C-alpha cells in the first residue's frame, strides 16, 4: 500500500518535495498518463481524508475540553477545604484597598512609579525628539489627515495566496515585536494624558490606549506630543490587528519628521503595517522599499532582507 510512488505522490501533494524534485515530478506527470491518473486519484483521496480529519478534530476538541473541565472540577474540592486559610489574606487585601483609597493623591500619583513605565531598552530612536521644534496646528492634522496612501491597489500583478499572506502577517508581527522591544518613550516632555496612555501601553492595554487617545482631548500644541500620540496609536493599532489604522498613524509621523530618527522608524513601521495586506499595498510597499534601499536609511539592512523574502514568495 505504501509503495514508493504512492509516497512520492503524497509528498508532492503535501508540498514536501524540494523545488527541484517537485518540478521534475511535475514534468514526469505531464509525460506519463498513468502517473497523472494516480495523482488525480490521490488528490481525491486527500480531499476525503482532510474532510474526515476536520470531523475527527472537532470531536476530539469537544472531548478534550470535557476532560480539561473535569480535571479542573476535581481540583476544586481540595481548594474548598482549605479556603478558610484565605480569610487572613482577604482581610489584608481589604486593608490595602482602604489605604490606597484614602492615600492623598496628587497629579503624579505614586500608583505607577515613573521607573515602572520606563521601557527596558535604552533610548534609541526618540532621543532627538527633545530638541524638535514646536509645531502649531498638529491637532487639525490628526483629525483630518486623509489616508491617501492606503487607498491605492495594484491589480496588475498576480495576487498573493492567503497562505503566503498569513506568513507575511506573522513576519510583520515578529519584526514589529522587535521594534517594540527597542521603543523608548521616556524623556519626552508630554502631558498627563499621554503619560497615562504610556502607562497603559506599558501594561499592554492597547485597546485602552486607543480609546484614551482617540476620544479624549489632548493638547497637541507641541509636535513632540503629536508624535508621541501617533506613535502610541500606531503601535497599539498594530497590536490589535488594525493594520490600516496603524499604517495611517505611522504615515502621520513620517509626514511630520524631517530627522531620520523620526521618519525612518515611522516608515519601517508603516511598511510592516502594509504587509498585512500585500495584495492591496503592493505598490506602496515596493515603492517604499525601493526608497529605503536607494538612499541611506536606518532600516536599510532590514529592508534588504525583507525585499529578498518578498522576492522569494
Amino acid at each position: 500500500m505504501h509503495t514508493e510512488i504512492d509516497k512520492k505522490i503524497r509528498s508532492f501533494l503535501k508540498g514536501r518535495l524540494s523545488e527541484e524534485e517537485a518540478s521534475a515530478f511535475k514534468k514526469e506527470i505531464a509525460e506519463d498518463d498513468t502517473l497523472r491518473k494516480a495523482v488525480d486519484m490521490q488528490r481525491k483521496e486527500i480531499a476525503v481524508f482532510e474532510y474526515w480529519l476536520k470531523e475527527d478534530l472537532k470531536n476530539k476538541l469537544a472531548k478534550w475540553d470535557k476532560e480539561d473541565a473535569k480535571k479542573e472540577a476535581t481540583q476544586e474540592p481540595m481548594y474548598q477545604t482549605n479556603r478558610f486559610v484565605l480569610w487572613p489574606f482577604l482581610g489584608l487585601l481589604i486593608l490595602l484597598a482602604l489605604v490606597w483609597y484614602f492615600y492623598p493623591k496628587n497629579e503624579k500619583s505614586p500608583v505607577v512609579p515613573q521607573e515602572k513605565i520606563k521601557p527596558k531598552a535604552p533610548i534609541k530612536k526618540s532621543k532627538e525628539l527633545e530638541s524638535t521644534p514646536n509645531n502649531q496646528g498638529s491637532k487639525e492634522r490628526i483629525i483630518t489627515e486623509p489616508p491617501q496612501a492606503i487607498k491605492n491597489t495594484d491589480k496588475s500583478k498576480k495576487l498573493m495566496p492567503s497562505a503566503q499572506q498569513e506568513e507575511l502577517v506573522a513576519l510583520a508581527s515578529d519584526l514589529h515585536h522587535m521594534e517594540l522591544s527597542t521603543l523608548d518613550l521616556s524623556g519626552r516632555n508630554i502631558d498627563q494624558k499621554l503619560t497615562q496612555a504610556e502607562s497603559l501601553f506599558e501594561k499592554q492595554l492597547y485597546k485602552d490606549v486607543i480609546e484614551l487617545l482617540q476620544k479624549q482631548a489632548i493638547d497637541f500644541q507641541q509636535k513632540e506630543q503629536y508624535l508621541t500620540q501617533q506613535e502610541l496609536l500606531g503601535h497599539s493599532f498594530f497590536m490589535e490587528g488594525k493594520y490600516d489604522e496603524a499604517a495611517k498613524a505611522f504615515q502621520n509621523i513620517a509626514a511630520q519628521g524631517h530627522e531620520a530618527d523620526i521618519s525612518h522608524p515611522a516608515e519601517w513601521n508603516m511598511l510592516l503595517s502594509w504587509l498585512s495586506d500585500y495584495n492591496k499595498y503592493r505598490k506602496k510597499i515596493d515603492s517604499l522599499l525601493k526608497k529605503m534601499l536607494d538612499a541611506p536609511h536606518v532600516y536599510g539592512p532590514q529592508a534588504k532582507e525583507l525585499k529578498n523574502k518578498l522576492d522569494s514568495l
Partner: protein
Amino acid sequence: MSAEKWTDQEIITALQGSYKENERALRYLNSPKGWKPQLIGWVVNQGGTLEEAQQVFNETLLIFDQKVRFNQYQGYGTLNAFFTGISKNRWNKAFGERNKSEVDFELNKHDIATPNFFDHNMIEENQIRMLENLSTEIGIDCQKALLFMYFETPYEEIVAYFGLLNVEMAYKKVSRCREKMRALIDEIPFLQHFFQD
C-alpha cells in the same frame, strides 16, 4: 519533548508525524499549557464572548494543523506568530461579518469544512452531503485505517489498534478499505477540483 512548553520544531515534527504524534501536538496546543489561553484572552479582549473565542480557536487550530502538515509554514516568523496571524484573520473576518449583518457571530459550515487549499466557493450543501454519505458507506473502522495510512503510520501500530494478528492482516485491511474508497470516490467527480496544489 519538554514537559511544559514545546519548541516550534517539536510542534512541527509532531504535526507532520504519525497520526498519534499529530494528535499529541493538537492536544498540547488545546491544553491550558498550550496556546489556547493566549488566543481566548485575545478574542475576549477584542470584545468577543468566550463561546466566540472557543470557536475562533477551534477553527484556527484546524487551519494551522493543515497548513503545517502541508508545509505552508516557511519559518519567516515564529510558529506562534503564524498561529496568531491565522487567528486574527479568522476573528477579523467573523467580526467584520457581524458588523455588517448585525446578527450573532456564527461560523459558516462551509468555511469550516474548507481548509485553505480547498476552493471555498466550490463546496455546496449537496457536496457536503455526498461526503457524509461516502463516510457512512466506508464506515468508522475503515476511516480510521485509511487515516493511519494517510499519516504513514507503521503497520505494527495498526495491528495494535485493531487487535489484528499480524502486519499482513493490517495491510489487507488497509488495502480493502482503500479499494472500497476509491470505488466510491470515483463516483464523486467534484472531489478532483476540491484540492488545489
